[in-house]
């Protein structure tokens, strides 16, 4: 794993940097690969078990690659009271996946988060790091359609090129 070398620079043999290092691995790789965990364990001087435990414990880390689009539904109290459950139902019905999963074509990952702290504008959905306020199932449907639609367009573009 040459790609995570720069992350380890200046942090070798510092076990307390484990979470920070894994954050950066997550950012660069999009998830925490097994090999990266082994490298991190070796370089920081942390037992592999501990690295595996940390990667599993914190929500910031995913052990599977995520889709191209990540849709995060906030399920904080304010969002719940204003109907974030409906948004989850919408996703389940439209994409046929459970929160935490990725569609088979690898296009969309749906996740839930326990509060993003933008409660006054509830319910909140985050699509690839941009925050969307006052969401409704209908708005979410369009967003998902759009995310799926991109694929069709790309596919047709590819056909044109070939």
């Amino acid at each position, binding site marked *: 794993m040459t790609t995570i070398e720069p992350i380890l620079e200046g942090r070798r043999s510092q076990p307390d940097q484990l979470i920070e290092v894994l954050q950066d691995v997550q950012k660069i790789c999009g998830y925490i690969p*097994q090999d990266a*965990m082994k490298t991190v364990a070796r370089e920081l001087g942390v*037992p*592999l*078990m*501990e*690295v*595996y*435990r940390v990667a*599993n*414990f914190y929500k910031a880390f995913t052990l599977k690659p995520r889709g191209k689009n990540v849709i995060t539904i906030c399920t904080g109290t304010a969002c719940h009271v204003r109907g974030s459950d409906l948004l989850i139902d919408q996703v389940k019905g439209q994409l046929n996946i459970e929160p935490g999963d990725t569609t088979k074509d690898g296009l969309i990952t749906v996740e839930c988060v326990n509060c993003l702290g933008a409660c006054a504008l509830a319910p909140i959905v985050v699509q690839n790091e941009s925050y969307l306020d006052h969401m409704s199932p209908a708005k979410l449907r369009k967003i998902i359609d759009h995310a799926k639609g991109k694929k069709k367009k790309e596919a047709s573009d590819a056909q044109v090129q070939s």
Partner: protein
Amino acid sequence: MIQTVTLTIDGVPVKAAKGASVLDAALEVGICIPHLCHVPFLQDTGACRICIVENVKNGSSRVTTSCTLTVQEGMNIQTNSEKIRKLRRNLAELLVAQAPNSKAIQDIAVRCGVKEVRYPFRNENCVQCGRCVRYCTEMWKANALGFVGRGKNRRVEFPFATRPDFCKNCGSCTLYCPMSITPCGGPMKRGEEHLCGKCESQAVTAPNIIGACTRCELGKGFSCTRHML
């Protein structure tokens, strides 16, 4: 010379080595505090909560695990109050409903006075006492096992769920697992789990002092410290 402190456990003055835990101090003098995750020579984590006691201070009391509580001069501990018995019974009920297929857990339920289980039984084979994990990491420094995940999904696992090559094959993890002793009548089938309770007669305590240890048979089941030392 070992420095000692004097504390009161269940109204009896007890001398204990400075730095010892209240649980060890009580067991030493034969006061029975039931316990599950505590194992001598391993670090106590206070995970199973079975060994709870009341720490009475200035008229008010705090419920805390005796394995993680260090003895202090003048401490006043209640191990067997009405409140503690009730809480302990409820905790044991949760445990036995989770893992009825372990004689050790069934024995703890008997010792803690569980008469009925008010939750639907589950048939899990781990109560996460962490004995295996601590043996592996502390005693053998192998770090081949650990708690993975959190909340409901927390489990004991190898890294990447496969036995690593640095596992020393010592076998401690199974040896000290309270699940490794099956109930006398054989494993209970799914849907047929029940509170056994047959060993109730063995939960003998000394007639006059409630909670005094008589090295009863039950302790063998859950490897009570008094049977291990």
